[in-house]
């Protein structure tokens, strides 16, 4: 349901909100499209951050930064816990990634020193910077990298997003003490973007071993990052302290504290009344307020996640494209954007924003035309109306309307409101059975294909190749990350060809064709581009001053994620 899915309960469950999309993030979605031009004045652009840098004061050491997050996380081990946006914010405090996204959108080495592809682009050799140590004193070396990678690949849940792209054995091989070779199943010229995500986060091998024996250590991460774990009270606060010997420059803050505050109004209230120094949110009302507040620095981004309704095409009646198309036509998209979106976020027609070189202007999401849904449903019901919908265990049609289940996450006020609005629109041609489940069951049942239609957020990977994890035939299975369970070999060809060409025109052409292909399959009904903000009070400086050792300026915010390496407080 897209736009904002949040429970009023203050519970860890909410964190899963994002565990759904966290899977998206695994595949490398913590940033916007790397090739986007600077975004325009659409209201979705990254605010001018020069307010931070122009002051050009000398950073002051000391102070504790209090950061408000939209939810808490389940665990902080990148090899076992699927990271959501809050997980990424906390994770980046304690872990560094092998690669990062530069200000210009290119992928640059971070913990790594260099990446070198093989001639066929199926293997990449990653060379590490020497002399980097984990917080527990262990060395960052090839063994540590191989260990972390193989653990993630093998992890039951997190590995789901990794396994489709790597061979079962020898996916990561130690070449020498500081060199690792990664082997893939497909040729990929854009692979290093994978190392900017959870997959590229480097946890301490000693800690990984200890956590395997004592799972409670998954709550107490050990990495190479600018901050070291200090303490954690689930659902209330997680605290990290300065890493005095950070390898990439000195850290200014004494400590950072992360507060999960699921009620965005409370979050905003704390922020405005000096209870928090920074926050991230997707709440439309809060973003409106933050944009109107002249003293706040807002890092806005709507390129990294789409909200949509998703249809499982495996079972009747939705195995028939006419029914899927009818659902799209009957979708009250305008009403949802007005009531839930409050006009803050941009409507979406496809997985790319208009600024993206891959955006296909010809693709328009069908919606708000209920009249067109009726003949499609009538035709289907006349033909196959007595087939059984296995999920509901009743015929696909009753009284000329298609029977379907709509699953949503509850209890959640926004979830319920959204459901009611969709249901009212769809009810012209559909009888809807509601299935309200908790976030965990929601993701799980969906992964197992036990749903008809659900609301979802994903896509917007740093490089679109990483989104293929949701789209390829090979990710259809008993547990599917291709949630709609829709396999089209032509689509696979488009995707795999696009990641194996260095010709921008050819790439663009392929991804445009992909957008059309996705539209025609009617498995996704795109609603809007999820708008994220990371906002900082005026005493917070330096967030966007991060550079690599070579001096390359790095992009400082993406999809609710910021880095605090160079942040300081002007007291």
């Amino acid at each position, binding site marked *: 349901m897209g736009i904002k899915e949040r*429970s*009023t*309960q203050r519970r860890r469950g909410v964190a899963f909100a994002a565990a759904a999309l966290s899977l998206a993030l695994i595949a490398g979605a913590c940033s916007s499209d790397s090739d986007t031009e600077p975004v325009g004045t659409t209201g979705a652009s990254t605010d001018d951050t020069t307010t931070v840098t122009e002051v050009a004061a000398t950073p002051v050491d000391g102070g504790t930064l209090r950061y408000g997050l939209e939810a808490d996380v389940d665990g902080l081990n990148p090899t076992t816990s699927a990271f959501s946006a809050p997980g990424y914010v906390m994770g980046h405090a304690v872990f560094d990634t092998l690669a990062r996204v530069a200000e210009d959108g290119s992928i640059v080495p971070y913990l790594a020193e260099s990446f070198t592809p093989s001639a066929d682009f199926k293997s990449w050799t990653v060379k590490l910077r020497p002399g980097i140590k984990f917080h527990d004193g262990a060395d960052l070396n090839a063994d540590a990298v191989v260990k972390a990678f193989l653990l993630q690949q093998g992890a039951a849940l997190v590995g789901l997003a990794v396994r489709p792209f790597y061979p079962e054995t020898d996916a990561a091989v130690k070449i020498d003490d500081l060199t690792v070779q990664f082997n893939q199943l497909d040729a990929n010229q854009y692979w290093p973007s994978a190392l900017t995500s959870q997959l590229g986060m480097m946890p301490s091998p000693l800690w990984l071993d200890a956590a395997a024996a004592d799972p409670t250590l998954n709550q107490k991460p050990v990495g190479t990052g600018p901050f070291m774990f200090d303490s954690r009270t689930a659902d209330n606060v997680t605290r990290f302290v300065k890493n005095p010997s950070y390898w990439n420059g000195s850290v200014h803050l004494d400590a950072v504290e992360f507060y999960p505050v699921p*009620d*965005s*109004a*409370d979050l*905003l*209230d704390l922020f405005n009344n000096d209870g928090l120094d920074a926050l991230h949110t997707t709440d439309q*009302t*809060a973003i409106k307020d933050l944009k109107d507040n002249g003293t706040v620095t807002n890092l806005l981004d709507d390129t990294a996640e789409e909200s949509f309704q998703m249809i499982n095409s495996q079972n009747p009646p939705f195995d028939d494209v006419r029914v899927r198309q009818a659902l799209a036509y009957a979708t009250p998209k305008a*009403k949802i954007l*007005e*009531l839930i979106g*409050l006009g803050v976020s941009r409507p979406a027609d496809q997985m790319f924003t208009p600024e993206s070189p891959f955006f296909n202007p010809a693709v328009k999401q069908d919606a708000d035309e209920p009249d067109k849904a009726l003949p499609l449903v009538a035709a289907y019901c006349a033909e196959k109306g007595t087939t059984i919908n296995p999920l509901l265990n009743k015929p696909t049609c009753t009284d000329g309307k298609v029977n379907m289940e709509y699953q949503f996450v*509850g*209890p*959640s*006020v*926004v979830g*319920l*409101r959204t459901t*009611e*609005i969709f249901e*009212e629109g769809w009810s012209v041609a559909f009888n809807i059975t*509601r299935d*309200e489940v908790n976030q965990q069951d929601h993701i799980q049942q969906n992964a197992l294909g036990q749903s008809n239609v659900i609301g979802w957020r994903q896509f917007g990977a740093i490089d679109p190749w990483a989104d293929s994890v949701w789209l390829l035939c090979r990710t259809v299975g008993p547990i599917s990350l291709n949630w709609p369970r829709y396999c089209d070999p032509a689509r696979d060809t488009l995707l795999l060809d696009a990641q194996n060409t260095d010709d921008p025109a050819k790439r663009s052409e392929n991804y445009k064709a992909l957008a059309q292909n996705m539209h025609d399959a009617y498995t996704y009904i795109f609603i809007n581009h999820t708008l994220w903000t990371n906002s900082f009070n005026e005493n917070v400086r330096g967030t966007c001053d991060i550079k690599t050792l070579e001096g390359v300026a790095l992009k400082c915010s993406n999809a609710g994620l910021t880095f605090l390496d160079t942040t300081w407080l002007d007291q």
Partner: protein
Amino acid sequence: MSTQTPTTTEAAAPEPGEAATKKTLGIGFWVCIGWLLVMVFVAVFATRLPIPDPKFNFIEPGQAGPSKGPSTAHWFGTDKDARDVFARTMYGARVSLTVGFIAIVFGMFVGGTLGILAGFFRGWIDRIFSFMFLVLLSFPSLVLAIMLTALLDRKLFTISMILGVLAVAPVGRLARATTMQYAEREFVIAARSLGAKNKRIIVRELLPNVAIPMSALALLGMAVAIVAEGGLAFLGLSVERSITWGGMIQLGSDSSKTLQNQPWIAFFPIGVLFLTVFALNFAGDRVRTYFDVKETSL
């Protein structure tokens, strides 16, 4: 040792303040009954009354924000989805009253039967039933209700039954105590000496006497059930696909911002819920005073 605690003993003597109004129910009682009748009427005939469609989104193009304050068109204002709060409050009476009614009928029937049997036969029947009541009373009611809703479904009937189960123990204990009290009375002993069967004694002699204190409890119990349903709805755990007062209050208070800027969304349903519960409590209390029911073993 015993977990059977000394029981609540309020108002053994008639309250001095009420001595003057002895044996009349008083105008307050009839006002409360009047309010309750209005709510019942609204609940029954909601679809036929000239009130707006509670599910319609009154979106006015070009207006900032869908939620509007009270006006002549929308007496209680509109909620975040631009739906009429007044109409929704009226429709909300349906679930609350239905749940309250079914719950208390179930509680009365099951609790009353078990209580009378326990009080009449004593012995092992009493011990088993009393133990059952104790087990039920060992859970704070909301804890039990939440647990059961999570394990079962959230249809109107299920929720009513769950809340009915909560009423079983208090009703049962009252019925048991009252039965024991009357079982020793002359008319029962007389009936028995005349050779009346147990069944006859229970139905003809005991039931009418036990029914009076229970009727007072019924109104109070209905209030408790309505509050409990509201609490469940507020946590998002009450009847699915229905407009409920608790659900409306949850919608209006899900963030402090909403509460601050659109207080009418939460406060009108709170007001109506409050008045209804107040009316039930007050009427129940009057009935209790009227029949001079002692609150022993409630």
